[in-house]
């Protein structure tokens, strides 16, 4: 055990930090992009507050197209775009762009379904009180959906952690890369086992926190 830690502890710690960096940074960007997209979908859909068939169809289709492409392919498919946006296609910096491109539409979808669960009657009650649509979005729809939103984001985070494993292909490192490079390519299964255990623990912690926060926010 001591030997294993001496030999691999540093590499695993670095991988852990890289995975966390990729996940947290991509998550933030994905929320910044995904939340407005989700709201846009809710508002512009049929019978929405700002019903608009054109906007809804375009956004809806683009999200479906991106979500159809497996991440490993998306990663290479959008290399030119990544280069243009991030200035590089390798390293943690280079992998954030594809992670966000993959995750933001997913978050938009998750938030859309969370927000659609909000009782239309409550929205109507606030309309009847002369409250403007932007305020209703924030103080009624997002507020009432916040528990489902947290559960949705939990799913997105766990998905992101999985996707970071493929980041190794563009030299971004991370736990997944470590498991692949050493555990598989160089056949050192104990490294792979260690990484798997760490990933399981991370996912358990994320899901548990998500569940607890969601329950606290639900208030009933």
């Amino acid at each position, binding site marked *: 055990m001591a030997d294993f830690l001496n030999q691999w502890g540093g590499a695993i710690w670095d991988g852990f930090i890289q995975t966390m960096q990729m996940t947290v940074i991509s998550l933030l960007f994905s929320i910044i992009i995904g939340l407005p997209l989700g709201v846009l979908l809710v508002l512009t859909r049929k019978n929405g507050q700002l019903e608009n068939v054109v906007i809804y169809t375009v956004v809806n289709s683009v999200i479906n197209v991106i979500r159809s492409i497996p991440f490993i392919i998306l990663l290479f498919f959008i290399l030119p775009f990544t280069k243009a946006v991030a200035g590089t296609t390798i390293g943690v910096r280079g992998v954030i762009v594809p992670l966000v491109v993959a995750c933001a539409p997913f978050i938009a979808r998750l938030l859309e379904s969370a927000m659609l669960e909000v009782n239309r*009657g409550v929205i109507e009650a*606030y309309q009847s009180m002369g409250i403007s649509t932007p305020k209703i979005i924030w103080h009624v729809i997002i507020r009432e959906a916040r*528990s489902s939103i947290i559960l949705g984001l939990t799913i997105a985070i766990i998905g992101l952690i999985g996707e970071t494993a493929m980041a190794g292909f563009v030299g971004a490192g991370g736990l997944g890369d470590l498991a692949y490079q050493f555990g598989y390519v160089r056949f050192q299964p104990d490294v792979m086992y260690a990484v798997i255990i760490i990933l399981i623990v991370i996912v358990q912690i994320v899901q548990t926190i998500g569940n607890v926060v969601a329950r606290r926010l639900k*208030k009933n």
Partner: protein
Amino acid sequence: MIKLQHVSKTFSVGKNKIEALKDVSVEVNRGEIFGVIGYSGAGKSTLIRCVNLLERPTSGKVFVDGVDIQSLNKKDLLKLRRKIGMIFQGYNLLETANVYDNVAIPLKLEGISGDEIKARTEKYLEIVGLKDRSKAYPSQLSGGQKQRVAIARALAHEPEVLLSDEATSALDPNTTDSILELLLKVNRELGITIFLITHELDVIQRICDRVAVMDKGRIVETGSVVDVFTRPTEAMTKQFVHDEARFRIPPTIFKDLIATGKLVNLTFIGESAKDPALATMAKRYDVLPSIIAGGIDQLKDQSIGNLLVHIKGDQGKVDEAIHFLKSRQIVVEEVSE
């Protein structure tokens, strides 16, 4: 206060067009409680939602306080809606906010100052009798309590009109009574005009001054509650009144009664209840009345008594006796089927 003129509303569902409102005109006076009654699907909900433009009429005009509200721009419409409170069958409270916040949050969103929000929230929670439940969440409240919160929320905007969309329809009879009491208090003590829709006759009888009866998107009868329910002229109104207010006699008993005399339904309004008309009739025309069933309904300002009376005697005498009753300000209706 509220005036709807020739309002029609057509919904398109796929290729089908559904006419929810057909040339409806209604006027609600300041300070009164006006009720619209009708079965579900009659268009009541659409009608009440036209008053604050949650639903826009396909044609026709809506005036609130003399203002043609369809001509208002977005900002003015929002302002106008604050003068019109609304409560719903489903309460429509924020599940994630406690009682206090459910009342306070809309005020905050309206841009009212902090001190004022606190004062109003406390005042109106006191009025609806829920001040001690400020910290409770809607999921911890009964249906009646939730509706009280919704009423406090509507009142906190200090509106001139309160719209009630089937506010008591999901409540049990006792709770319905207490909510109706509260609405009466709101009307009398705060001077708020109430426009309500319901499918319950009881609601109309208990608190309304005037009523409109709706059927298939049209208003078929309008008038004071006493008039409409003691002298219904339209089939739909009669159906409502008979559904709820009249007596059900088992068919076999009914047959016997009809064979031996005449059956009349007498409606006494207010003062006429004190007139010993039946006794006088029996004496003067030498007929034998017997009371089969009876009941009394409390309307907002007066009571209505109903008697189902069987009159036995000489054919000519019975007819004269019935004519006599009609002359005594009693609504007489012969029951023959």
